[in-house]
């Protein structure tokens, strides 16, 4: 699957395209064969060997890891996964550096925009964003390389495509389509007039909302200026009117009660719990009476320490330090603490993951998402 072309999508030379495709194949090998294989190796070799040696089965996540460490397969599979993760950004990054001036110029000169864009040079990124580059993506989502820079967003747009080897869709939009589609199918009478997409990034989830509710005014906010600039140019090029602004989702400048729907996709699991709680409280402030907060879900809680080990590869190998926090957070409680009534809480229930289907191997349940979560302001 190739990506839909738009004004700021990076070009590829013949060889850049070939190297990027190779990383995709390597990611696929890791996701669908190597990592699921570690579970087989664990069950047939590592766990029995550990039991023979110690007289008991691995009793916690540390002992599961300890039992696997003697396995050449386990160590090499993980290293190949990590290599693919680093090579992904390096391969795409080299291509973007070559054409960055051109991409920045295109983002700065959007012809006849229908939507708007504003950045805030005084906004400081939260401290936790400077401490760890999520996904080992150099510079994280928000680093600016210069004036009018879009590097991080171009890197993420191309990078996510190859990371999921095309499985996220030609506009990396499949998660957004599935999520917005579920809401519309289950709440057919809900017709939001103003929608806010928090942590909108390059706009993967924002555009599906506007396309599904074409009469709504749709806003996207992101703490990253490169994301906001790029998302604006991308949306305009794809013919979708969205209002993007650089803001921290914990403290926005929108008025109280000014939205019918506040949503986010793949945002919460990259944020520490105190920030997640602030975002929920801010969502509550921004919603009118009868308005809805709606987020994607984390992994379901782990059944046991073995399940936890096999579903947390990214936490330990690809800089996703906050994902466990969300997974352990009781969202029903967190919504209530943010001011939503307990009985307004709703969920889609567990859902099959839209992408990375192979990640959990034969233990299919682990590839599921815990499901969308939402609540309604009285």
């Amino acid at each position, binding site marked *: 699957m190739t990506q839909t072309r738009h004004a700021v999508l990076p070009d590829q030379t013949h060889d850049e395209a070939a190297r990027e495709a*190779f990383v995709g194949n390597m990611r696929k090998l890791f996701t669908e064969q190597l990592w699921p294989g570690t579970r087989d190796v664990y069950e047939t070799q590592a766990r029995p060997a550990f039991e023979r040696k110690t007289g008991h089965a691995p009793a916690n996540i540390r002992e599961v890891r300890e039992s696997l460490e003697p396995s050449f397969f386990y160590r090499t599979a993980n290293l190949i996964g990590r290599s693919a993760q680093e090579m992904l950004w390096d391969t795409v990054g080299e291509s973007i550096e070559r054409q960055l001036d051109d991409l920045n110029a295109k983002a700065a000169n959007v012809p006849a925009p229908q939507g708007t864009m504003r950045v805030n040079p005084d906004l400081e990124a939260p401290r936790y964003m400077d401490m760890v580059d999520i996904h080992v993506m150099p510079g994280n989502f928000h680093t600016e390389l210069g004036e009018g820079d879009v590097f991080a967003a171009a890197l993420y747009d191309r990078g996510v495509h190859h990371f999921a080897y095309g499985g996220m869709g030609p506009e990396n939009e499949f998660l957004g389509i599935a999520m917005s589609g579920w809401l519309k199918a289950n709440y057919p009478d809900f017709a939001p007039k103003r929608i806010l997409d928090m942590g909108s990034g390059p706009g993967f989830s924002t555009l599906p909302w506007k396309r599904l509710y074409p009469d709504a005014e749709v806003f996207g906010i992101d703490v990253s200026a490169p994301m906001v600039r790029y998302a604006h140019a991308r949306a305009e090029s794809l013919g979708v009117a969205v209002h993007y602004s650089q803001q921290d989702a914990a403290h926005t400048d929108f008025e109280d009660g000014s939205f019918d729907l506040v949503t986010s996709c793949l945002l919460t699991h990259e944020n520490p719990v105190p920030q997640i709680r602030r975002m929920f409280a801010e969502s509550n402030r921004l919603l009118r009476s009868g308005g809805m907060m709606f987020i994607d879900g984390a992994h379901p809680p782990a059944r046991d320490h073995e399940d936890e080990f096999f579903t947390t590869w990214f936490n330990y190998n690809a800089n996703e330090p906050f994902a466990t926090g969300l997974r352990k957070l009781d969202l029903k409680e967190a919504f209530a603490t943010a001011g939503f009534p307990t009985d307004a809480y709703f969920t889609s229930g567990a859902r099959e993951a839209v992408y990375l289907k192979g990640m959990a191997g034969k233990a299919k349940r682990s590839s599921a998402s815990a499901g969308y979560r939402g609540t309604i302001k009285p």
Partner: protein
Amino acid sequence: MRAARGPKRPDYMGNPDLDRFMMMFTALMSDVSALRDRLDTHEQLAIEGKVATPDAIEAFEASPEDVARRSALRDAFLKRIFRVVFEDLERAERGPDGSVSGSDDAEARNA
């Protein structure tokens, strides 16, 4: 910008230099694979009776069939390079009678 901030790279092989050599090795694989794609483009241009100049190579638009064929070649290339890794998995899938490959040297290393 090519270096990520955050926790240091996890230890995979018990020697961080070995881990870094794997990174170099897979980067080399990427370039070999890209050369194979480029050769494939040469061949497709030849089928069309065209000369594979640098401009003709850049202008070549791979068909869905080309994309699928190249992807299959990459999958096979990866499987050949990592054969000794999959050897372990094959034994694991064969069941408890398969010997526990890799444990000998690792146990010696951990001793």
